[in-house]
């Protein structure tokens, strides 16, 4: 198992490295002059000033030197400073990543907590009207863009209940209840598609499992239906659900820009969006590296979870 984890981590490192190189090169390819952008509204900027700023930002060096410098620094945990405001990229990410992770975690939690009962209900009452309507609900959950849900929530909660989410984001340590209330709606909007996918996936895998021989064995022992489903069928159908979660992570971490802006959450999505728009190379790169690492890590965790759930997988890997 440890060997497997180490191996996966090494692959993960390779992936993060590739991502970095790719994004680094791509950033230089896209048009938009970061130096001039910074001097945007300053008429009368001279070429010397442009050159000086470029030198300050390290942009006058050959591309591969820049890449090398970046990688060397990055290994030491230094992603440089934002071109925009000179803030340390690590600080910026340190501020925002936890927020995005919390939001993502809440979304996943909601998706799981709502998706699993829906899926189970659907499978157990297969082909009943309840099943059909739950299926329709879950398909609808996938069909509605999350930002659209977010917009609807904000607008109509204010209109119908004269209630709107808190305006200023508070960290969980500052004000936990405000923090949770603030993140609840976007987590709901974000988690809806996760919920829907889980419900769908769980339904079909549960149906398969419920017809399998070993479930019949459990029934033949005289176990109650609750035990059959809760203890045996669920655990056996949960692996595909986990793989969905692994895939959704990318979705959730990368798909929050609009929701963050709707709910005024200072998360990674907005940071990435703005940094790309402003060609703030160090920030984009820092974000992408961190994102890649989180992605790799979460997928590793998901895979390790497979092993925990399924001894066969554990066995196959050690």
């Amino acid at each position, binding site marked *: 198992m440890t060997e497997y984890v180490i191996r996966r981590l090494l692959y993960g490192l390779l992936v993060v490295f590739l991502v970095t190189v790719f994004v680094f090169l791509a950033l230089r390819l896209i048009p938009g002059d970061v130096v001039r952008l910074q001097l945007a509204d300053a008429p009368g900027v001279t070429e010397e000033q442009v050159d000086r700023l470029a030198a300050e930002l390290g942009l006058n060096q050959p591309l591969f030197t820049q890449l090398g410098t970046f990688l060397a620094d990055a290994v030491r945990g230094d992603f440089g400073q934002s071109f925009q405001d000179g803030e340390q990229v690590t600080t910026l990410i340190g501020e925002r990543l936890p927020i995005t992770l919390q939001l993502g975690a809440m979304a996943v939690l909601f998706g799981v907590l709502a998706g699993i009962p829906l899926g189970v209900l659907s499978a157990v009452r297969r082909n009943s009207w309840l099943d059909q309507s739950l299926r329709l609900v879950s398909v609808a959950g996938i069909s509605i863009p999350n930002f659209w849900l977010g917009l609807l929530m904000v607008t109509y909660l204010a209109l119908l209940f004269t209630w709107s989410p808190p305006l200023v984001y508070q960290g969980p340590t500052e004000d936990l209840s405000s923090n949770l209330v603030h993140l609840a709606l976007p987590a709901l909007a974000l988690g809806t598609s996760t919920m829907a996918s889980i419900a769908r996936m769980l339904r079909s895998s549960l149906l398969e499992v419920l*017809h*399998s*021989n*070993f*479930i*019949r*064995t*459990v*029934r*033949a*022992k*005289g*176990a*109650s239906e609750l035990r059959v489903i809760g203890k*045996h069928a669920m*655990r*056996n159908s949960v692996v595909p659900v986990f793989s969905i979660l692994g895939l959704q992570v990318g979705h959730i971490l990368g798909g929050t820009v609009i929701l963050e802006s709707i709910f005024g959450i200072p998360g990674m999505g907005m940071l990435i969006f703005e940094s790309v728009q402003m060609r703030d190379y160090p920030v984009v790169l820092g974000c992408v590296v961190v994102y890649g690492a989180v992605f790799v890590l979460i997928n590793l965790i998901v895979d390790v979870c497979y092993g925990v*759930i*399924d*001894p*066969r997988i554990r*066995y196959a890997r050690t």
Partner: protein
Amino acid sequence: MWPNAEHEQTVPLLRVADLRVEFDTARGTVEAVNDIGFEVSAEQTVAIVGESGSGKSVTALAVLQLLDGGRIANGQIVWDGQDLSAVDKSRMRGIRGEDIAMIFQDPMTSLDPLYSIGDQIVEAIRLHRKISKTEARDRAVELLGQVGIPDARTRLRAYPHELSGGQRQRVMIAIALACAPRLLIADEPTTALDVTIEAQVLELIRDLQRQYQMALVLVTHDMGVVAEMADWVVVCYAGQVVEQGPAGKLLTDPQHPYTEALLTAIPTPETDKSQPLGAIGGAVPALHEMPPGCRFQPRCRHAWQDCTQPPPVVRLDGGRSSRCWLRAPAPTESRRAEPEQELA
């Protein structure tokens, strides 16, 4: 209604009568079991034989009310004087495992792959016995020892995939025996196993049956197994019992053309290699295209015009019976078809 076999006991432990089981499929409702009936008494071994699809497993599952998507459309399943199709769910759960236990056809897939075998045996015990986990584990060790798994205590932690097919089937047996049931239904317990292992497993079942004084319903398609194990044999074809009787008599003197054909189709050490085997032409009819009348008639070498009518169940001596026009009380010789007329 099947004639009551003249067993020594007066009250059978399990009585299945006129059983009809239906399934709803894409092609409409099909009758997987059309008319099956038999009785099992304490300590007796009843073998249900028949080709694939003849309804053996469905019958076995119907007894435990474990039909997945099917329903009992007709007939009775009487356990110890109680009609099982009428008892409520919780009572049925009490009967499963406690009174009637079952071993399934495929040991490879019949154990939950995610739990250790110890957990699964313990579960079977604790579902019916109010005992502590440790006590249950001790009982599990004992059971594993009985089914011949060495080093039982450490083996409790093993997962099904770590065991060979034979060992898994032994674990299945241990689970079935967990609460010392009065009836064990073994649905083809050895089909997936090697011949040498098969013999060992059958021996085990036989020994345990003696030890626990269980009645045994053995579902199989292997006449060899029947010969070794059964007191009473029920031959099924296409969802019906075509013949039943005491094992010794039935195997040596079959009273239904199907039983007879089946016995000649199986090569034995004595079969003449220079001759073709006595194959039965054609194939078992599909559920949705059953022939009218006798269901075996299209493949029967003795078929004659009466066979287009449903044959009666004819009661013969020694408690035997046969579902065949040939055994009907007043057939005139002239109405018989030429036996040579083969239907290929």
